[in-house]
């Protein structure tokens, strides 16, 4: 690492300290990483305020609106969780792929295909109308995961077999997925010409907290649904896989040093396909749970870019599955309350800023800044 020393500014007055930036030799302290991430978020919010102000809006009003309508009462906290559920699952999908330095940015498309798979169970139908709820929960989740996994498998296979850049192919698959769903929304499953399918029957819905309101009145009106259980179980399993299992070790080794992995006899191609399948299945599960838990029908606008936000969440969580849960709640709040904020691009802008500062802050994780008193010649 090169030493970057700051040049002295004025010739007469000499800056009495020398700022040296050098490679960190020892392990960085434990508190450093969360502190850096937090400061990245804070700086991003400050710069965001500046841009909102330049655009002619009131930053304070925008932020206080976001805070109030995302965490201000139990009702909106529950709604924040509803937005956080798909984010957790796509965040996990991105985390496992990124851990192997496999850039799956197709979680959005895999989410759409998952939604398609879950809808298929109800609309084709795969299960009879009156099937019990638990069957619907299992089968819609299964179909969602299968179709998401299929959408992840294709770019994974193309990368393993033909060395096709997965960044571009997964992204193209997103656009294809949207058109695929549109065909069914506008055509096959369209309800009397509207651009949506019929509403699913009640027993195909995921249970919600408000379903418990009879026994516990406190839960009345709360929309948080069973998908939260999927997300948390998935996070715990993925945490175990990545940090405790042999396969997780292989994934990390390939990510950090593919050549060493190859010498160790780990098949990189096989793992590319496997990780893409798992990643796609997680994103597909997000789509399935969103459809059966929130939307209750197949329609066009089911995602405000969940798949793309998942990328930032994975990065904010430092690819740690348990941290993904926390990061998702933050972004769930931003997406939920950001919907009504004008101008409408603000949530995207803040997400972008957070990501830029996160990446920049990594520099201070890898390097340390030393300030020493200059010795006079």
């Amino acid at each position: 690492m090169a030493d970057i020393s700051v040049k002295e500014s004025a010739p007469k007055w000499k800056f009495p300290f020398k700022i040296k930036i050098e490679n960190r030799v020892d392990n960085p302290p434990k508190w450093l990483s969360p502190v850096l991430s937090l400061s990245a978020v804070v700086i991003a919010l400050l710069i965001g305020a500046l841009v909102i102000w330049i655009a002619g809006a009131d930053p304070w009003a925008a932020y206080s609106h976001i805070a109030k309508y995302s965490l201000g009462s139990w009702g909106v906290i529950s709604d924040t969780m509803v937005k956080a559920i798909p984010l957790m699952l796509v965040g996990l999908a991105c985390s496992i792929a990124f851990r192997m330095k496999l850039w799956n940015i197709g979680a959005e498309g895999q989410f759409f295909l998952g939604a398609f798979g879950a809808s298929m169970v109800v609309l084709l139908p795969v299960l009879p109308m009156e099937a019990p709820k638990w069957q619907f929960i299992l089968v819609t989740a299964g179909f969602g995961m299968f179709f998401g996994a299929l959408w992840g498998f294709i770019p994974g296979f193309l990368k393993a077999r033909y060395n096709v850049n997965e960044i571009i192919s997964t992204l193209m698959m997103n656009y294809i997925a949207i058109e695929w769903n549109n065909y069914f929304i506008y055509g096959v499953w369209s309800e009397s010409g509207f651009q949506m399918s019929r509403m699913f029957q009640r027993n195909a819905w995921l249970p919600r907290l408000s379903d418990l309101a009879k026994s516990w009145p406190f839960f009345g009106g709360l929309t948080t649904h069973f998908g939260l259980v999927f997300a948390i179980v998935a996070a715990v399993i993925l945490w175990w896989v990545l940090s405790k299992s042999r396969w997780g070790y292989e994934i990390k080794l390939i990510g950090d040093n593919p050549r060493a992995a190859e010498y160790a006899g780990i098949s990189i191609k096989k793992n590319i396909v496997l990780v893409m399948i798992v990643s796609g299945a997680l994103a597909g599960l997000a789509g399935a749970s969103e459809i059966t838990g929130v939307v209750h029908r197949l329609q066009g606008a089911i995602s405000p870019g969940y798949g793309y936000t998942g990328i930032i969440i994975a990065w904010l969580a430092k690819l740690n599955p348990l941290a993904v849960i926390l990061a998702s709640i933050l972004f769930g709040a931003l997406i939920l309350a950001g919907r009504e904020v004008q101008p409408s691009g603000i949530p995207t802008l803040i997400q972008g800023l957070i990501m830029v500062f996160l990446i920049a802050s990594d520099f201070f994780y890898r390097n340390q800044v030393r300030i020493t008193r200059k010795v006079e010649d």
Partner: protein
Amino acid sequence: MDLILILASGIATGTVLLYATVGEIFSERSGILNLGVEGMMLIGAMSAYKTAAATNNAWLGLLVAMLAAGLISQIHAFITITLQADQVISGLALNFLATGISLVLGEGLTSLRDVVPQLPKYSIPGLSQIPWLGGIFFDNHSIMVYFGYLFIPLTWYLINRSRPGLHLRAVGEYPAAADTLGIRVYFTRYLYVFVGGLLAGLAGATISLSISPGWFGGLTTAGQGWIAVGLVIFAQWNPYRAAFGGFTFGALRRLVLDLQGPAMIFGLSNPFYYNIHYGFFLKMIPYIFTVVFLVIGSREANRKRIGTPAALGLPYIRGQRGL
């Protein structure tokens, strides 16, 4: 379905891809992968439209678009060159940021249609009279298309035959060697990331001021920036192939739209005419073709041993072993 019309429109929309792709070629030749093309194009499209609306001058809009996109590309340059962060993730971040900025600053621009000046269109006298080719290449095209014709050989010459091009390629292939020869590696990389930004901004401005005028938020570019990143691989970092890929793609996009028109094609009844919902499958075709182009590109590169610039994606750290 008029073949000449489809090809002519392919040239027009392909010009957008041409500028964006060649911009990315410059950046990647210097060793910096910039995935933010889509976002930079949006910045370009937005600021071009906004400036043209405010000043009533399309040329000023073009200039501001280039500078704005060039400026925002320097965020990526700083993060990847000076801070040595991962280029993939930084490019994605740039994309989010640039998209967000253009959506925020582009608020309310959509309603300005028909009052914003556009870049002029010309037919080249003489050349446009040539049968077939005249109609495709020289008839009633945006001035940006004609710039594009000059731009292709010029950039090829710049990259492959000029001294700055030699330095550019050296920095992208073997920065340590370039450094020992006195080529300023960091400066060169910053410069060509900037050039990539300028050209992405130009591409965006070409859309919003000329090819399909207007500002439609994220739909203005509709993934063309990503297609451009894909085309770079197909183009094997060569402007001529980038032009070929771009124009082919443009024609394909138009063909897909036109296929739904006639009731009969080659004497067969046209399924896309009788069931309009099949049109969604037609809309997938450009994206499917991007993937197909990628497969072709990477296989061909394998066979001919034409590679990616060797130092692409790697930070250069002075005094450290390796590339």
